[in-house]
């Protein structure tokens, strides 16, 4: 679960990481009031769960309350990489002498947290990693050892931070960020830029936190931060129904059980010359309600022209899925042709159930490849 900048800063503050004071605003008037409270110059920052806000015009300096109101009006409603700005973070403006970059990520390959620090902050970290890898200090933390101050020192010397006053502040900050990383069950804690003010103060000017969904039960206060309105409407609907759904651009609606099989189904549709309309995983279930829920979500996509129902029974039993499909078709009207492929546990029984009922727009195929071809044909 990704957090907004203002939420990440709230967590940062809890762990003692220095951030600027700010206020949340959802209207120009609130932005004005926030600027008034904060006093002086403020920065009006779009809160969206994507990068590139600055270039998209989502971050603006305001001279005072009225200016903040004006800037808020410009930013609210902006579409930044498909994310519409509905919230603003108004914060006291900082003078910036230097921009660094600091992050802790989950390195799945090494199976260890990875610390990264560079003095070339503010820009794309992949670019730094590629163009001047020696400028990016990297160090893994052994999870049993935990954070030790020497790790921060190695980063600091490695990145070439040589002012003792900065060193001291960054040393403390790395330790606190690691505490936050572990304490919040984060998969990513990124500070970009980590700034040094002309007065030599080190501060987190941005904050990107991503928290492990599986650990949210331990952190109800973070779980509550989830912005249900941030996801596209159809994905939201799917989530509410416990279905994993990702909207794509094509015409063949896809439904399967298991993420790997569904991904493979997408590929096979493409091989057959079609374009998948979505990724939709029923998971281990496949009962009538699950099928209804999934079909509702897929059917609501106006681009969909056919539906491919690809089930390989393991725990999921094909006869149950077949019954689920029939019940779903009873309860709702699906205009599109549905191609069904059933294999694995109780596949025979499942196919018989479907053959017996033989609903008009339902087409059974024996193999995944053949079924994919048929679904693509229907979508043409």
């Amino acid at each position, binding site marked *: 679960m990704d957090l907004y900048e203002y939420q990440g800063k709230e967590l940062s503050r809890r762990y003692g990481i220095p951030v600027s004071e700010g206020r949340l605003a959802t209207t120009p008037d609130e932005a004005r009031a926030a600027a008034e409270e904060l006093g002086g110059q403020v920065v009006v920052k779009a809160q969206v769960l994507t990068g590139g806000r600055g270039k998209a015009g989502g971050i603006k300096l305001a001279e005072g309350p009225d200016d903040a109101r004006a800037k808020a009006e410009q930013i609210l409603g902006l579409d930044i990489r498909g994310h519409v700005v509905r919230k603003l973070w108004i914060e006291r403006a900082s003078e910036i002498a230097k921009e660094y970059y600091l992050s802790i990520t989950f390195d799945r390959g090494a199976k260890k947290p990875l610390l990264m620090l560079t003095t070339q902050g503010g820009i794309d970290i992949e670019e730094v990693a590629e163009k001047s890898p020696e400028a990016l200090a990297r160090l893994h933390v052994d999870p049993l050892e935990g954070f030790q101050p020497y790790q921060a020192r190695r980063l600091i010397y490695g990145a070439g931070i040589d002012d003792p006053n900065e060193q001291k502040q960054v040393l403390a900050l790395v330790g606190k960020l690691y505490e936050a990383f572990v304490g919040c069950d984060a998969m990513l804690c990124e500070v970009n830029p980590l700034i040094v003010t002309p007065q030599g103060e080190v501060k987190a000017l941005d904050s990107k936190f991503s928290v492990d969904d599986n650990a949210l039960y331990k952190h109800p206060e973070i779980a509550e931060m989830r912005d249900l309105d941030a996801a596209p409407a159809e994905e939201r609907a799917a989530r509410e129904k416990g279905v994993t759904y990702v909207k794509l651009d094509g015409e063949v609606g896809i439904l399967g059980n298991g993420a790997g099989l569904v991904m493979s189904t997408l590929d096979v549709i493409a091989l057959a010359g079609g374009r998948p309309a979505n*990724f939709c995983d029923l998971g281990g279930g496949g009962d009538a309600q699950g099928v209804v829920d999934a079909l509702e979500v897929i059917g609501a996509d106006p681009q969909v022209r056919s539906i491919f129902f690809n089930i390989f029974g393991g725990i999921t039993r094909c006869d149950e899925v077949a019954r689920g499909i029939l019940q779903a078709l009873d309860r709702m009207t699906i205009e599109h042709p549905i191609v069904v492929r059933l294999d694995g546990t109780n596949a025979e029984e499942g196919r018989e159930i479907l053959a017996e009922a033989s609903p008009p727009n339902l087409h059974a195929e024996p193999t995944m490849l053949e079924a994919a071809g048929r679904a693509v044909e229907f979508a043409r």
Partner: protein
Amino acid sequence: MAIIVDNETRLVVQGLTGSEGSFHGTRNKRYGTNVVAGVTPGKGGQDVDGIPVFDTVADAVAETHANTSMIFVPARFAADAIYEAVDAGIRTVICIAEGLPAHEMLRIYAYIRPKGVTMLGPNCPGALSPGKANVGIIPAEIFSPGSIGLVSRSGTLTYQIGHELTQLGLGNSTIVGIGGDPIVGSSFVDVLEKFEADDETEYVVMVGEIGGEEEEKAARFIEAHMTKPVVAYIAGFTAPPGKTMGHAGAIISGSSGTAEAKKRALEACGVRVGTSPTEVARLAADVAGAHA
């Protein structure tokens, strides 16, 4: 011989009295797996379909000499269950349970690795050595005994490919689902190493997917260390960048970890890569035929 589970397996099921634990535990037993014990705190002394239940894994090991554990407890008790198994002397842990926090799994991995414990999962379908033992939720009826080792990050995709192999008359030494979570107990390399050493395995089919770099590492391992032929399949060629496709493992970051990149890495190391489950099965049949 086979790998991970076989005739030597003495299985304890942690969470045997739960609905999933009892369903799959008894199913594994009916398949012929030597299920010697179950563990559910507070239910010691009971039995499930003749399998004795103990309060602790230590008790189960002391009484039944269990050497392998299958974990079927709710996510928030799973880390505790894994530690309990390992500390009780269990050498192979197969964690079907899903939803373990990644930080917990990070610590578990670092803890068990130096002890030489073999772990599959979390969030994995288990391991099946046809004709010998089935530990987990893999539908055994799809598979037949044979000489192909099959290793995969995904459940149903594995069944699909196994099904295609069976239809071509090819059997398996062991089918291993390593699980799709960000941190799992065994990587492709770990399992390939075991297949290379296994005298019943002659060829290997590896089923990967987008995200991470485990397939790339496997490619380098195959080139450097494997004498047995390997064919591969990668799912997710059409997955758009930056979208999460269900498996936490299947997150693309930047250009690395794409299906295309993985395919190239594997082919560069001499591994033939199929573009559909059907094609990879045919490749496997080719290889088997060529070596037959």
